[in-house]
């Protein structure tokens, strides 16, 4: 596993989506080829478990294939796919918690070396921060990690997350709050104020 740029452009997905909605299997296969790295990345960030992430990817695309006929196209295909992936990953994480009693270390993805191949535009300092962030995310309890990943990495709204996970909006907010706090604690002083502005809240991100 290594980091990379997106292998293929996301453009020109629409004709493939339209064809797949009509039952065109080769078109759907091409959609899988163009999006599976993104889907795998999301699945791995959510599950923090490589084998589970692979299972989630397969299950998510099966669900997408079965449901693409009813995909209305009022959202981007990738957004729709993310939601399916998030839902599938959440189910997997819950099931794993019930049936497995793995030590925490076994649930963690291969660390550091997987992230060494950073994108060229990343500075060494930024790359190091992202590595630490990735590692800290994997240490979050699954229920909190899902919220932080979906909200802060993928930019989904509280409402969208609550709907996909089958929880209330207020529960989503509480878990996000706890997740951020826990993540901050895990990072200790790794995230020093650095180049960040030290102004009041009116300058918030």
């Amino acid at each position, binding site marked *: 596993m290594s980091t990379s740029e997106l292998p293929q452009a996301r453009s020109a997905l629409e004709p493939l989506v339209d064809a797949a909605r009509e039952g065109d299997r080769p078109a759907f*296969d091409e959609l899988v*080829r163009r999006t599976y790295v993104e889907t795998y*990345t999301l699945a791995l960030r959510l599950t923090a478990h490589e084998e589970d992430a692979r299972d989630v990817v397969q299950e998510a695309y099966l669900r997408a294939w079965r449901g693409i006929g009813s995909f209305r196209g009022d959202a981007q295909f990738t957004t729709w796919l993310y939601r399916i992936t998030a839902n599938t990953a959440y189910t997997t994480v819950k099931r794993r918690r019930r049936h497995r009693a793995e030590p925490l270390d076994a649930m963690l993805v291969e660390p550091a070396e997987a992230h060494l191949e950073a994108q060229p535009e990343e500075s060494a300092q930024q790359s190091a921060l992202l590595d630490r*962030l990735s590692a800290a*995310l994997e240490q979050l309890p699954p229920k909190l990690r899902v919220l932080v990943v979906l909200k802060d990495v993928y930019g989904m709204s509280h409402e969208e997350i609550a709907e996909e996970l089958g929880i209330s909006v207020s529960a989503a907010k509480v878990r996000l709050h706890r997740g951020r706090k826990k993540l*901050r604690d895990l990072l200790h002083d790794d*995230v*020093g104020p*650095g180049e960040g502005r030290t102004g009041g809240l*009116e300058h918030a991100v």
Partner: protein
Amino acid sequence: MQCEDVARILPEAVDHGAAVEISVQRHIDTCLRCQAELARYRKMLRGLQLLRTRYLEPAPGLLAQTLAAIEVAGEREARRAILNGRRLAYAGALGGAAVAAGAAATVVIVHRSRRRAVPVAG
């Protein structure tokens, strides 16, 4: 307002557009420790946003396995659809045969009852 009070709400307050009490804002404006902590949260959120485009390459084989799984599921569903179609056809044929048999039986019964009802001449 104490730094500990501010620390408790920072994970939520750091969101863009989050409403915070004036007392919290005033405290942060005058407290270097809380300003530094707020900056750490901002940096953490910026880093999380950057992870969005940091793709993780799966081990080889995932694409082939995924396409194969879809293929198998597609075939299974196609077989199921064919079987369902055949079942419908069988059911339709059986139903048609039953209706035809019923109609034939009715004709025979009606015919016999008419023959019995014909009065004997002479």
